[in-house]
């Protein structure tokens, strides 16, 4: 238990995008910037292109792009949009404390 406490929490994201569309591209860029700044070395990002893998969007209940799904740590969360409002996103992800 002691060991687990000392381990940094890993953030696991899945971002659904629609090809090269502008908003999707922005969402990817914003997510990467956010992770680099606030979650260095403790995040994984998976990008899913709905043009290529529509079935996975269905499986995850995603109906719009771009949609960010936080798979871990629980509780899970989803955010739709370009993720450009950094403060709101950090709050939503429960990272508000870190941002300050």
């Amino acid at each position: 238990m002691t060991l687990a406490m000392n381990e940094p929490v890993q953030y696991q994201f899945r971002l659904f995008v629609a090809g090269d569309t502008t908003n999707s591209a922005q969402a990817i860029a914003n997510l990467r910037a956010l992770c680099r700044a606030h979650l260095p070395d403790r995040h994984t990002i998976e990008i899913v292109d709905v043009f290529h893998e529509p079935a996975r969007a269905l499986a995850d209940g995603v109906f719009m792009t771009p949609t960010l799904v936080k798979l871990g740590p629980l509780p899970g969360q989803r955010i739709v949009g370009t993720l450009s409002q950094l403060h709101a996103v950090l709050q939503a992800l429960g990272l508000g404390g870190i941002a300050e």
Partner: protein
Amino acid sequence: MSIYKPELSSTDKASTDKEVAALIATLHETGRRLEELTGGEVDAVLGRDGAPFVLRHAQAELRRHEAARQAAILNALPAHIALIDNQGAIVSFNRAWQGFAETNGLPAPSYGIGINYLDTCDKACGGDEAAEGIRSVLAGNLSSFAMEYPCHSPTQQRWFLMTVTPSSHDAKTGAVIMHLNITDRTQAELGIKRLNRVYAVLSEINALIVRVHDRDELFREACRIAVETGGFLMAMIGIVDRATNKLVPVASAGKDEQFLTAISNLLSSDEKASTTMAAKAIRNKAAIISNDSEGDPGALFRENHTRARVRSLAVLPLIVSGEAVGILALYAREKDFFHDEEMKLLTGLADDIALAINHIDRQERLDYLGSYDPLTGLANHRLFLERLALLTRGAADNGHRLALFLIDLERFKNFNDSLGQPAGDALLQQVAQWLTQHLDDVNRVARVGADHFAVVLPEESHAGDAVGQLEAMVEALLLHPFRLKGDVYRIAAKFGVAIFPDDGPDATILFKNAEAALKKAKVEGHRHLFYTQKMTENVAQRLSLENQLRQALGKDEFVLHYQPKVNLASGEITAVEALIRWNDPRSGLVPPGLFIPILEETGLIYDVGLWALHQALRDYLRWRAAGLHAVRIAVNVSPLQMRHPGFVALIKQIVASDARAAQGLELEITEGTIMGDMKQAIASLQAIRALGIRIAIDDFGTGFSSLGYLSKLPIDTLKIDRMFVIDMATDEQGLSLVSTIINLAHSLHLKVVAEGVETEEQSHLLRLLKCDEMQGYLFSKPVPVDVLEQQFLYKRSGK
């Protein structure tokens, strides 16, 4: 931005899905509202089946983006690119494409959108290959196509690479055409090739300059090298004639007559000559080039150049001691050939040629003084040694011998003292003249000392040649009347002889040894002496033998001996072989091995052979007339006789003397005689055989031993060489060989005679092998005709 966060718990997931699905269904109909609702931050929504639906604004943006990006990429490329549809019509093109068309003044309809590019190619000169390539790609027969082509503008030489690739996996949708300007690369390649050509010319001509000692050869070869190695269309060297101050072409290569004549005319014309490039090059002592001789107003010769396909030319002055003595003109079939680098090399080349001219000029003057004897005009010692060195090298290459004679005029000093030096000089001049005439080649004679001359003669194969030539020269010299001050004098000389390579491996040693031989000849009082003592002896012996043999025929010293051939089955004499013997009055009968080779070498064999034929025939006819057992006589025929064109006619003439003559003769020839010119030999043999004379192959098995050729020959008899007969009795292989020969001969219907049979055992074996006849000491050695008659030919009638 909109955030909603029902967690992904399975219970409320279903209800949320349902709600969202209902919402989406509405949104699908009102995409605009969705965009408003999502603040423009959403690109796509997904249908119930997961199929994404891109919102309109995102879609438009995506398209705009994509098109802009592609256009940017295409426009950034230096290559001229166009897309064509599957019919060849241009669908789009990049800026470079348009730029090229515009700067080259192409009318818009020939490159713009909608134009059929295949038509454009078809119309363009040399565009067939391009059109063909494009069609193949459009039809899916080629996965891609590329070709390099020149496309020179009026001002510039250009090369392009065209590639054609399908615009998608399915070629039927069209293709991408790209033209890339590869002029720089191509020019660099051409430049390197051009420079390499000039380098090659330079190095070959420099090698030539070292080698050559003659102006004409230098000029001729230099021009030839420029054309053959340098790939120049033509090359010409002209020299200024000091008398007329005009340039005269002295050598050229690759040039057609018409062009050369035109140049000569131009150069010799008074008014125009001074305006030629050549004249300018000489005046300014500087190279002049015209890299576009068709368009250059400075080149007077435009039409002639065009006709001769000259596209550029360079005229380089040849400067000797600060004076332009001539020009080297090089004509290239390529436009723009002479660049700085080439000119640097070629100027160096012209300097080298000028240097060689200067060197040869000086050398020629020095050469004459240093190489010739002013009194007789013959080569002096030094030049003769040089020539001898050349001849020895040539002889070594060809495997020939050379005979060097050094000639010392006897008692010349007395002659000089008593008649005066002018008379002595006159005599030397006459001897020089006589030697030159006698040899018919002034380059083989030299005066190498006050009263010493040297002569070098080629020898075909053996030392005998030199001996004959020496004898002839000695005799002729002795007989020649030299006239001085109204009196006739005869000159005797002593000869020292050295043979190359036997007596010396090079000119210097050979000469030294000939001198030594001459010195010895003078001391010992010989008329001539060879450097090698044994040779002198051999030659002396041989000479006397030869002389005696020459006389032997006239003196009736040759006789025929006969050796009987016996039928192995019946034991009866069936024929005889005639063998020539020389009855030397001094030493008695000479063994054939000692004189037959000399007869052959000297050609005497022809006359002696003829005598033998006549004699044999006389004997045969006499036997018949006398009622003796007249057997056929086999006479040996030498290769020399067989090859003589009149031989067959001669035989005809001989047998025509008597109707029974032909049946009394058989000719024995060796394999070697036939092998030389088999066709001619067969024809001769057929003609002889048609007369009724039989033909036998002598010494069978010693020559080429080709059993295969036997069947082709018109012959009657095969004589097995004595060596086989000897081997037959000693080992099994020998026996089977003889057996094979006999069987083969029989299968070809040839009679077989075994030669050299000396033992009963051999005779027994031959009988077993069904050999027809034998000849040898066992039965009888060759015997004089009277013995033959008494012992063998009387037999039948005697018993």
